[in-house]
């Protein structure tokens, strides 16, 4: 009667500070997003931009995550990854075993997601870009945002509302479809 451990996979949700990563995770997760905090050493702190971060948080890095059980034997974890550049030493660990990533973009501050895009491109980690509308509004069409972010053709750009479960789910589905397509392509060749 001992329970069997399920297979575990993860998807990363990245993007600038305050872009709605935890909101997206929370809207699809079967549990309220959980948080783990890791103390940072001085090495991680010699950076300029502390704006918008409470003092208390300045010495820890927080990860918010959620979970989606897929049947009995498979669990998908969603990890909201720290958006601040100085935390990125953590990303190597985070990226291991990830199916892919969602880069959330705030239309008001698209540049805050550049670094995440660079990271996944350089690592060859498949990702989609999801534009999280402020209050669900989307003043720019996807094509315009693609251009602003100088995204290559193969990267999907989606407009979403991270507060809505269906919208967040569709972003994840778009990523999975992209992965399936790539894997099918590998099978055919």
């Amino acid at each position, binding site marked *: 009667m*001992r*329970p*069997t*451990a*399920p*297979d*575990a*996979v*993860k998807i990363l949700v990245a993007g600038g500070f305050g872009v709605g990563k935890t909101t997206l995770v929370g809207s*699809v997760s079967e549990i309220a997003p*959980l*948080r*783990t*905090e*890791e*103390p*940072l*050493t001085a*090495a*991680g702190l010699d950076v300029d931009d502390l704006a918008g971060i409470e003092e208390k948080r300045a010495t820890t890095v927080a*990860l918010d*995550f959620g*979970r*989606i*059980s*897929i*049947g009995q034997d*498979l*669990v*998908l*974890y969603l*990890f909201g990854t720290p958006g601040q550049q100085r935390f990125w030493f953590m990303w190597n*660990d*985070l990226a*291991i*075993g*990830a*199916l892919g990533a969602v880069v959330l973009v705030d239309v008001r501050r698209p540049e805050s997601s550049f670094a995440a895009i660079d990271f996944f491109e350089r690592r060859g980690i*498949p990702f989609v870009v999801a534009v999280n509308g402020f209050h669900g509004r989307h003043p720019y069409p996807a094509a315009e945002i693609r251009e602003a972010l100088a995204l290559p053709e193969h990267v999907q750009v989606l407009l979403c509302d991270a507060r809505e*479960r*269906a919208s967040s*789910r569709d972003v*994840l*589905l778009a990523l*999975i*479809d992209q*992965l*399936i397509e*790539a*894997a*099918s392509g*590998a*099978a055919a060749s």
Partner: protein
Amino acid sequence: MTGGDAAGRLVRPFTLTGGRTRPSRADFTLITTVTAVEPQPARAARPQPEHLRILRMCAQPVAVAEIAARLDLPVSVVVILLSDLLEAGRITARPPHLVSRAVDDLELLQKVRDGLGRL
């Protein structure tokens, strides 16, 4: 507990405890799934209170990140406690599914897709 060497690694010095065939601390990732062994080994040393809390938590399979969040402890600290339990034969650890991005993963991806579609 947080000795904090220069690189901020709580883990590395302990992985050198040497020569074990069991997985080392390095094998605990955020989504490694941990399950308490049942029945618990009779001869093992009495676990500490933190260990007992973890054992209760992983009566059902649970991920390392989840244990850390629920104990409100850094992952690096939880990993050390888990390693103690693993070495005492009190838990089993299942590593995450390693993604090869290859054909083998098609079935897995399809399963994830179906699961998400049901949300």
